[in-house]
């Protein structure tokens, strides 16, 4: 292709800069509020921080329980544990289902696949109370395990479809050759298919992780003790009905977001490949 004209280069870069600025505008406000000292921040159109105080961060990170233990550390650990187990459990459940839906034309495949997608249109409003009763019947109320189970199953339908889309793009000949050599279905799946599916697995895991990392309502309802809380519940506490502590809220928001942004950054390549699986075939 011929070299682009100078004007074209300028316009494309200009548009990208503009889009990035618009995208960053609210983010910069969060940073500005987090860096402002405890109270009182003048309103202006300037989203760039004018003060640099780490007071809010120190206060959020240093939160201690009444017995003097490091409460924030405990809650951070809860969030990491709950989200990681959710991500791994959700992806594990989804990968065999996605594979079966992709490869085998068993009776009812269409229906079961459609049912999976249909669950995405269930409005959550009516599910909270039955879910609560169900977890109670299972003896899982007020436990991290119950929360993980709910998060993981909620993540399964999307994960299954995403992985199915990926498996659809892998040529069948791969497994046929292996099966000829006498490998079992499971061996083929485990040793040939899965290693080829790292981008899709990474994206699916990231998605399930994010859903759990960010969820607030169920966590607030299902977790009792402060020491069992996940970070979204903690953050919500900073913006009470009457006194919103925007400084600490923003500092907490940054603390919650940084690991996720880092994950996104590390997984960028897999994200781009793994999400658009369906098209490679097309």
């Amino acid at each position, binding site marked *: *292709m011929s070299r682009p004209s100078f004007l074209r*280069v300028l316009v494309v*870069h200009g548009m*990208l800069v503009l*889009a*990035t600025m618009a*995208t*960053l*505008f*609210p983010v910069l*406000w969060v940073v500005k509020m987090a860096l402002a000292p405890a*109270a*009182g921040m003048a*309103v202006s159109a300037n989203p760039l921080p004018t003060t640099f105080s780490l007071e809010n961060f120190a206060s959020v990170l240093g939160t201690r329980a*009444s017995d003097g233990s490091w409460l924030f550390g405990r809650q951070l650990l809860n969030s990491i*544990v709950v989200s990681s187990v959710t991500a*791994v459990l959700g992806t594990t459940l989804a990968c065999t*289902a996605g*594979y079966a*839906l992709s490869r*085998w034309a068993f*009776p009812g495949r269409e229906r079961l696949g459609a049912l999976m*997608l249909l*669950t995405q*249109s269930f*409005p959550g*409003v*009516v599910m909270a*109370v*039955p879910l609560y009763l169900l977890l109670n019947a299972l003896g899982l*109320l007020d436990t*991290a*395990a*119950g929360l*993980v*189970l709910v998060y993981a*199953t909620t993540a*399964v339908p999307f994960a299954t*479809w995403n992985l199915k889309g990926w498996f659809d793009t892998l040529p069948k000949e791969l497994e046929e050759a292996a099966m000829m050599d006498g490998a079992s*279905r499971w061996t083929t799946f485990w040793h040939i298919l*899965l290693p080829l599916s790292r981008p899709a697995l990474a994206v699916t895991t990231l998605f399930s992780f994010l859903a759990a990392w960010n969820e*607030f309502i169920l966590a*607030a309802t299902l977790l009792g*003790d402060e020491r069992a809380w996940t970070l979204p*519940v903690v953050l919500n*506490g900073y913006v009470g009905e*009457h*006194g919103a502590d925007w400084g600490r*809220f923003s500092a907490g928001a940054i603390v919650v*977001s940084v690991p*996720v*942004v880092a994950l*996104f*950054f590390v997984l960028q390549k897999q*994200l781009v490949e793994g*999400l*658009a699986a*369906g098209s490679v*075939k*097309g």
Partner: protein
Amino acid sequence: MLKPGARAGSSTLAHPRSPATRSRTACGGAPDPWRRGVFRAFGVLVGLLAAQPASARDVTLWHAWRGEERVALEQLTASWNVAHPETPLTTTFVPYEALAGKIEAAVPLGNGPDLFIFAHEKAGAWAARNIVNPVPELPDALPVARAAMATPDGAAALGWPLSAKALALYRDRTKVPEPPVDTDALLAAARAHTHRDQGAWGLVAELASPYAVAPWLHGHGGGVLSGGRVRFGTPENAAALGFVRTLTREVVPPELSGAQLTQLFDSGQAAMAVSGPWLLSELRSAAKGGVDWAVSPLPKVTATGRPAAPYATVDALFLARAGDDARAVAGWLASEEAARVRVDVGHQVAATRGITYDAPALAAFAAQLEHAVPMPTDDAFAMHWEPFARALRGFGRGTLTPDQALAQADTDLAILARPPAPPVSPTPWVVGSGLLGLVALGMARRALWGARVDVLRWKHAYAWIAPAFVATFVLVVLPFVTGATVSLFETDGVRWSFVGLTHFIDILLARDWPLTSTLSFWSTLAVTLLWTVANLVLHVGLGVALALLLREPWVRLRGVFRAMLVLPWAIPSYLTAMVWKGLFHREMGAINALLAALGLEPVGWFDRFATAFAANLATNAWLGFPFMMVTTLGALQAVPRELEEAAALDGAGGWERFRHVVLPLLMPALVPAIVLGSVWTFNAFNVIYLVSGGEPDGSTDILVSQAYRWAFTRGHRYGYAAAYAVLIFGVLAAYGRGVKRLTGSAT
């Protein structure tokens, strides 16, 4: 008391035959280190989960007290535990938003605490549902607290009153040295300190809320409850709203939230504030750069000579599980001795008689309680908040006169408080569904029998999908079906009656409202469709455009741009939605500041449907475009450059190349993303609820936020809400079917 849930939960997950551990044993000796690493990490995490402590407790107490109040409670708990090691007390903090829901769900199931602390106004309904156990009447409580805690028959108390809260007047002493004695003096002082151009206000108060308007209703001789019935349209209430209109026109900033009130008063931008004791802990002292403030009771209303009387809410200790230990703990926490600690450490206004206050501000709140109306606890009153708040917002925008606002509130309330639908006989339903079940069973059997060879041949496939499907069925499908069944019932939380399709008929025929009302299903559906389509256009348009820009090989800093542009996706959406709401605030938002910098007039974003809708749309477009951008970037990898170059050689322009070469190749990836995206947007509850909150007048509500309101804020009409949810599901299922037919015929 042992908590069985904690132990059972951990052991289920760590059970050797759970699906996750099963695949671990199956892959034993996997050669690939990354896989081994993943499973090792997983094992560690499961261990950590299992290690969550499960402690044995005796008396448990749930509360939502924060800050100093919480410190005081914990100090009291520690003292109790030293003195009574045989009946230890454990207090658990629960976020305020979650506490009521948890109590209503947990106590009837026997999972609740022994005691809990909550504001008294829900206690009447809770006593009717046996969630709280009445206790003998308490003679040494303040009169207002005793009135608040009285059971309907007056023979006992609903619980032990601890502290009482009511609105009073804060003032900046440098600007208003003496407390204003009446409303004329209040207005005069406020006018003297209002300079809109400098952002200075004479008074800050949340005048769009029924709670903050109530003192003026009572001061004018009015009120919303008379003789057990709610009635808004009285001459006294109209006179009170006339006074409120003067305030909002001249001295009070519009659409003020509690947090903004705190900020304005604390920074010295407001001379006076009407707020409760919760503001005390938010204000800085004069020594730390705060204003020199003082508190006094609200002034008298000049026209009537009556004092402005706010509602008093009583934080009380309720007995959820009757037991002598719990009673002993509660009696002590409510005693004068404990009240002293709550006053000195927690800076509360105690509901106990004869407490003296060292802090003048607390003494002023205690004085205000002598002219306060205990918040009524009956159902009729609980129903009045939403219609009154709606009317007040319309009134605040200046579109309604006081009489019109009150008349609208009366009309809305009459609809909301409509008697429950009459029960219908369930017999035909039972017979009908029994027959249908038999027919379905027969058909399923025949289908399975017909395909038995195939089913047997593919039994491994069923085994592979079983874990995912069983989990989805039990934890997603089953709760939804159970929840949806509620749509055939009417319930007030205690009694259930079968009403068949009544809710559906009411909703679909818009029996209660004109079709164009914001409460009607059809107008909400129209808004929801507009919302979904507008969002999709923006998501796909922005996402595809940015992906195409980023794809040019000569773009510098591509990685940086890409990382910045996916940020909205990476940050928790409930956080950013709240930030966006702040950005759109009329007085204090950065967007209006930006408009002002460009020389434009500030916009009241949530005053009109178009701008409120635009604010929601901007937020959700910002949240959603990265998903489409990343999907498109991936799909573009499959579009060979050579194809485009060939088209360029044939003389195709940029748009034609995109339209005829690139776009067709993108479609296979975009179509599923669009279908999923539209379903998610259709149910995008967070954005609507957190940004516009349905403003103005619920016109920007979408179906799912409407369902939420029916279930949780409009008198707990679960059946009606469930019918909404079923209809939402129906619309989306029909949409999915339509898409399938379209794409099916296209390929």
